[in-house]
């Protein structure tokens, strides 16, 4: 469904967002977002709550229906009329704040469900791919465990494996560590670091500024439904150009 990846040039962005708008009723949450993400890039979106960062992320696979603008993922216009949105979503991984694992399935069941039903991969092969994905997040020994038997950090890693198993072009992370106890955050960040090493394209909404400093290629500061400022972490954290960015960074850093 997505344009032939053999044709992909390194310069073409994986994610290309132009003039994205989103309103809930009369409230405009996104007021024209322009954003491009290159292959293998890891971008961090920061901003106060209500700035629209999660809504932006959720528009990228149309969990929220955009009100205007355009979004291309790996060359495919995901808002084109008649686009097969399920086929598009298979190539866009998403990781949620509250994990959202299926409680009635084992870890392996969670990871293989979409492989079998959406990607139509035969069961035996799906199981192999599922085990590989679980091994990638360090949970090869937990394939038979139900979500209720796993710690929060382990659950989130299964959720990451669920997204990875489909071999996505990009993974969207929506506050992946916000629901975790502090001592469990590290294991999830480690998996994200490994993914970055492996060259995965990632867009992350998170408050883990330490991690952003160390691992992000680019940090995007959003407020009031617009991108106020973006740049390399050194610039955003060390030498922000906008007063509002300075204020936000100072306030967040105070908490750490």
């Amino acid at each position: 469904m997505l344009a032939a990846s053999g044709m992909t040039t390194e310069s073409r962005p994986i994610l290309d967002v132009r003039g994205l708008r989103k309103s809930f009723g009369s409230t405009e949450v996104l007021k024209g977002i322009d954003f491009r993400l290159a292959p293998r890039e890891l971008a961090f979106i920061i901003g106060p709550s209500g700035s629209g960062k999660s809504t932006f992320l959720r528009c990228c696979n149309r969990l929220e229906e955009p009100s205007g603008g355009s979004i291309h993922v790996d060359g495919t216009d995901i808002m084109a009329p008649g686009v097969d949105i399920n086929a598009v979503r298979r190539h866009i991984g998403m990781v949620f704040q509250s994990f959202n694992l299926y409680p009635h399935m084992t870890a392996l069941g969670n990871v293989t469900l979409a492989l079998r039903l959406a990607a139509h991969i035969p069961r035996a092969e799906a199981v192999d791919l599922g085990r590989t994905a679980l091994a990638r997040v360090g949970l090869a020994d937990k394939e038979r465990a139900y979500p209720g038997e796993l710690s929060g950090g382990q659950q989130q890693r299964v959720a990451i494996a669920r997204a990875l198993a489909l071999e996505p072009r990009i993974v969207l992370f929506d506050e992946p560590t916000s629901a975790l106890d502090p001592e469990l955050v590290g294991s999830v960040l480690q998996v994200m670091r490994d993914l970055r090493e492996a060259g995965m394209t990632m867009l992350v909404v998170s408050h883990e500024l330490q991690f952003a400093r160390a691992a992000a290629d680019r940090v995007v500061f959003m407020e009031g439904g617009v991108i106020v400022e973006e740049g390399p972490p050194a610039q955003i954290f060390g030498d922000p150009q906008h007063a509002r960015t300075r204020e936000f960074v100072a306030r967040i850093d105070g908490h750490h």
Partner: protein
Amino acid sequence: MDRFLFTFFNAEVMAEYLPNILSGMWVTTYLAAFVIVTGLSLGLVLAVLRSALSQKMPAPLSWLTGALRLSLIFYVDLMRSVPPLVLIVLFYYGLPALGLDIAGLGATWLALSLVLSAFAEEIYWAGLISVARGQWEAARSTGLSFLQTLIYVILPQAVRLAIPPLTNRTIAITKGTALGQVVAVQEILYQAYSGLSFSYNPSPLTLGALAYLALFLPIVIVGRWIETRFAWRR
């Protein structure tokens, strides 16, 4: 005491009407089975339909789905408010007038199935909407369709929540097969009652009560077993 035994546990009368009661048990059994199967499946179909009709749609289509959803809810509320006996009598006398020939058995089956479907729909629906929204989002984000998400992710969780109230309601409504007696369905109560009128002795009713116990006590026990069976760790 002798008089009590003679009235309610008259062995002679009981022996005479036992074959009738047994044949009534058979009628009650298959009538109840049919009501359970049609009522619970129709209820599930209605709940799934309601879920599909509640999806966000673009404007002209949304009027149609909205209207369908409202008529579905109207049907459910209607069936929940009318006493089953009224429906049975209505179908028995009303449908033939409309050119649809229906026996007492058919009328009872239809009425109880519709009533059970309405209650079951509400119970399934409550289960469906109590499954966290994140479950939908996670499944859809991996490329599963609406129907796949519903069948593989949402329904298993919803049904588990629905099972205890569903068991209770199913038992309550299948006991309503006794209402078929008024339209000459030859189930347990009908047999017991005609036994009473022929013998002038209520012992057939005692036998009938025992027959109901023999039929429904296992169902209650199975219901309890199903409840524990479906309570998995969260």
